[in-house]
């Protein structure tokens, strides 16, 4: 009975694992929905901000602002957004790979880099690869809050204005849709200059007045637009992490199902052959007695 019993024991433990992965899948699904709602709710802000920028640019306000100015890159900052937890497929390692590629590029160009990492997984992975990490955050989970992101953004804006950094890149997972997420590095500073809205059936009466002036509004609007883009990176990262975990756990659950099936088959076969063996022995005994 030894082999059959061992198979049964393995089957039981695989069943337990399946229970856990299925639960994790359900939790990730629920969290994903919530994170998705937040991300959708935040889209309005970005949309309105962008349209306001377009309108100002359309008026032809001379847009020169320190945040738009492209300087030669001497010192740069990189922000890496990973998860605090694993068991989410290639989510964390993809971002780390992206970040390492960028860091390697800066290194070969001999540009000084300041690295900040959010998420325990990324902190561990980068430390393992010998990257010096200046700042770490572990408080961002599936619900990043604007109030928590704002100080980080503010610090970058100040560093940029003071000339301590000439460029800021964020390595994160962009969320294109439930079927597609992609680890990317995106340049957030200097900002891309706003483009004028192009003839979307605008009337001449759409000429805006500005209080107090287009220039002073732009001065406030550009930092706000940077903040909203940074916040969007955090939101995207949170949604993508949940999707990645959902997919990984779904695959794990299915795998466990397959494993249980093949274990059951092997177990049944082992038990049957054992029974057959016993019957053969008995029959052999009977034959022997007859003679």
């Amino acid at each position: 009975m030894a082999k059959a019993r061992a198979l049964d024991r393995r089957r039981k433990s695989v069943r337990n694992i399946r229970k856990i992965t299925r639960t994790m899948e359900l939790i990730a699904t629920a969290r994903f929905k919530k994170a998705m709602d937040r991300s959708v709710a935040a889209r309005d802000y970005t949309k309105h901000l962008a349209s306001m920028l377009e309108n100002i640019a359309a008026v032809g306000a001379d847009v020169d602002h320190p945040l738009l100015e492209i300087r030669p890159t001497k010192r740069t900052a990189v922000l890496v957004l990973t998860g605090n937890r694993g068991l989410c497929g290639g989510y964390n390692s993809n971002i780390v790979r992206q970040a390492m590629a960028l860091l390697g590029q800066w290194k070969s160009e001999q540009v000084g880099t300041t690295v900040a990492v959010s998420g325990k997984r990324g902190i561990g992975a980068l430390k393992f690869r010998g990257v010096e990490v200046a700042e770490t955050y572990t408080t961002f989970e599936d619900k990043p809050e604007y109030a928590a992101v704002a100080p980080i953004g503010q610090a970058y804006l100040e560093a940029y204005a003071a000339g301590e950094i000439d460029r800021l890149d964020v390595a994160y997972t962009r969320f294109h849709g439930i079927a597609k997420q992609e680890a990317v590095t995106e340049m957030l500073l200097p900002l891309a200059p706003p483009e004028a809205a192009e003839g979307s059936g605008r009337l001449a009466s759409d000429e805006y007045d500005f209080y107090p002036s287009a220039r002073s509004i732009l001065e406030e609007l550009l930092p706000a637009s940077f903040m909203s883009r940074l916040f969007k990176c955090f939101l995207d990262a949170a949604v993508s992490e949940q999707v990645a975990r959902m997919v990984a756990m779904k695959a794990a659950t299915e795998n466990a199902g397959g494993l249980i099936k093949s274990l059951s088959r092997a177990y049944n076969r082992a038990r049957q052959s054992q029974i057959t063996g016993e019957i053969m022995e008995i029959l052999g005994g009977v034959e022997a007695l007859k003679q």
Partner: protein
Amino acid sequence: MADSPRTAGIQCVIVTPETTILDVKARSVVLPLEDGQRGVGRGHAPFIGRLGAGAVRITTVDGREAVHSVFVEKGFVEVSHDVVTVITQRALPAEKLDLGTARQDLAAISSQAARGDEAIDAKLQAQQAAREIVRIAERAR
């Protein structure tokens, strides 16, 4: 859409980075611009303005007249074709403000000492914002 003067209004939207706080039809909206308040009714000329700290007061048209007040601190407003869009980093609906905590916050900010021009500016701004919150909370009671 019915366009009779009684029912037609202006669409008023208040958004923060996290969510849309308010999206209602309004008869008139009073906005706290940086240098003073400004009322917006139907057919107002389009403008974009910078907001200071204060209350956005909205008189709605649906059924009975009700006034919403929302505290906003910094941000922008875009008025175009009977649509008022307020974009702000922080918005607190008046019914969620608590007078007790608001007064405490104001007292705490007032009692802090500020040194240097920047710190003094920051303190004055915070103080003004806190005062506005207290005022709105008082009115909401």
